[in-house]
């Protein structure tokens, strides 16, 4: 058993390292990097939403806060990326601490709506505080990270290949930390709280304390992801706070496989890859007339149709496949016994 697992791990590692050389072109590499941000986002979100079962609609705010923080520090103060990155993560974490203090005692619908209100207010501020964020113009010219290693020279993360390795490192860190947290007392506490909060409290598990840990940790990784995102796309605008993004993240967690480590990763890959794959699907309505004299002239699959499908997948998915794809696949192909409530399914 163990030998094949080590071997499997090595092959996986080799594969991940070789990705820039395997993929057909930079466009695919770009999509993989893009998915990488969401691996970080979804994994962090999973701690609160998956393990503890609390629906937070505010995660996108942490992502955006990290992105803007890092971008502003680089553009206005000339900070190097390596300082902006932790700054972004810390800013998000601080907001999470402050917000968490206020709202983590609240449960149910109220919690959901407060996180939504938080997200909207943060978006409003970024939209309107022109002096700081330049509003909808966004911040352009965010520099790519560069790294000076004395004796070796300068590594520049402008190239996609280099940036891929950078995001790979952070994805691995994020996933590993989440794995350790999920398998620790914290993870077990979160699941206990999810299953039966009063019972957990009665044996001394403080829901507030543990949910704070999950919330802040998730926010921290979201902030890091934001900083990486800003320095990759080299442009950031208040669109990062769009409601659709948080819905995407939640879908990745819930349909990928909540309360598993692999779930958000697979979810991120699927839900960033799928919309782009649809770019190559021809528009079935092309050439049809939807009103006198008006032809559908676009060969692109309509965004409306894509989103309709997405909404439907989300709706049906949470109802009929509530645990997500990864546990479902595991059950189907009988790889390992399914976890009992409270015990951790051994994640890879």
């Amino acid at each position, binding site marked *: 058993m163990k030998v094949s697992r080590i071997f499997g791990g090595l092959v996986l590692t080799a594969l991940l390292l070789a990705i820039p050389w395997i993929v057909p072109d930079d466009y695919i590499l770009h999509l993989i990097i893009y998915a990488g941000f969401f691996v970080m986002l979804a994994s962090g979100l999973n701690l609160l939403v998956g393990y503890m079962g609390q629906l937070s609609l505010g995660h996108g705010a942490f992502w955006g806060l990290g992105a803007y923080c890092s971008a502003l520090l680089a553009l206005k103060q000339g900070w190097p990326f390596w300082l902006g990155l932790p700054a972004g993560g810390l800013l998000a974490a601080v907001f999470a601490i402050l917000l968490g203090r206020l709202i983590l005692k609240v449960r149910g*619908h109220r919690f959901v709506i407060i996180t939504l209100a938080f997200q909207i207010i943060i978006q409003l501020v970024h939209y309107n505080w022109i002096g700081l964020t330049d509003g909808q113009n966004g911040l352009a010219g965010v520099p790519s990270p560069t790294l000076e290693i004395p004796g070796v020279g300068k590594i520049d993360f402008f190239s996609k290949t280099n940036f891929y390795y950078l995001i790979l490192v952070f994805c691995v860190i994020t996933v590993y930390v989440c794995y350790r947290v999920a398998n620790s007392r914290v993870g077990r506490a979160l699941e206990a709280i999810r299953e039966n909060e009063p019972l957990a409290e009665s044996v001394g598990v403080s829901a507030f304390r543990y949910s704070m840990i999950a919330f802040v940790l998730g926010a921290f990784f979201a902030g890091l992801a934001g900083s990486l995102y800003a320095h990759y796309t080299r442009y950031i605008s208040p669109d990062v706070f769009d409601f659709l993004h948080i819905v995407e993240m939640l879908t990745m967690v819930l349909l990928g496989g909540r309360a598993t480590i692999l779930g958000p990763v697979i979810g991120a890959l699927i839900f960033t890859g799928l919309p782009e794959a649809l770019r190559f699907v021809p528009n079935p309505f092309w050439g049809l007339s939807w009103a006198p004299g008006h032809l559908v002239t676009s060969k692109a699959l309509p965004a409306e149709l894509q989103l309709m499908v997405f*909404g439907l997948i*989300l709706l049906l998915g949470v109802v009929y496949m509530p645990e997500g794809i990864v546990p479902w696949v595991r059950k189907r192909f009988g790889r390992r016994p399914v976890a009992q409530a409270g015990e951790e399914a051994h994640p890879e």
Partner: protein
Amino acid sequence: MELAIQLTVQGLIIGCSYALIAIGLTMIFGLMDIANFAHGEFYVLGSYFAFTVAKMFTLFESVIANYFLGFIVGTFATIGFGVILDRLIFKRLRGEPLLTATMATIGLSIFLANSIQAIWGHWPRQMPSPFGLDPFIWGPVVMPPVRLFVLVVTGLCIAIFHFLLRHTRLGKAVRATFQNRESAALVGIEIDRVYRWSFATGAGMAAIAGIMLATFMPMDPVSGGFATLKAFIVVILGGMGTFVGAIVAGLGLGVMEALGGGFIASDYKDGFGFLFLILFLLFRPQGIFGEE
């Protein structure tokens, strides 16, 4: 001063629509305990169904006839659609954990909003208005006829709703279920029927609000989310599960936004509502009229 009076009046009228939509949401929230993120879509659907009948299928010569036909058909079509949704989806969602139900309604709202956009396109549409544009002027108050219409219809709706709730058997059943679901079922009330009628009423109210607003504002397939959000704010500020709360908070929010937008800051106008929302949720979660 004059401006304040005028803005207050305008705020009240917008508040009417908030109140109508919120009453509907209160029913679903209070009865089924589901945070229905798709509620605003009834508001949008109402206006689009009405528009289709009034403008696309113009069956009559006169604008008035088309308008009111559209109004009636639009409302009932939305109610019908709501009942179908209830049977197909919300029935399945009752009893599901909050995470599942909420995300399902979010998915539903994305599906509906984009379907509307796919079917009707995203051109700004408007209900053909049988009302003249020139306003009545009563002292400091400038009242366009269509907005007076909104006031009147809202008042009628609330009155009818109140009557139905207080003086019919179904209304009594709804109130009983609201107070205590299990006991209501125990005394033989058909819970499913109660749910269905409540959903229908909620959808209908939202549709009426949508149709009225579409008479003086251009329609937009994606405004459902916005409407849902406002409805949530109103429901929570007013007190989840109280209809009086929904009405008072709805009108109040409208007035507050009008005064805030006019006197304080136009670009942060929507922020006031959210700020109050957070404050209430933290410090007075039962809202103005709710009981804890």
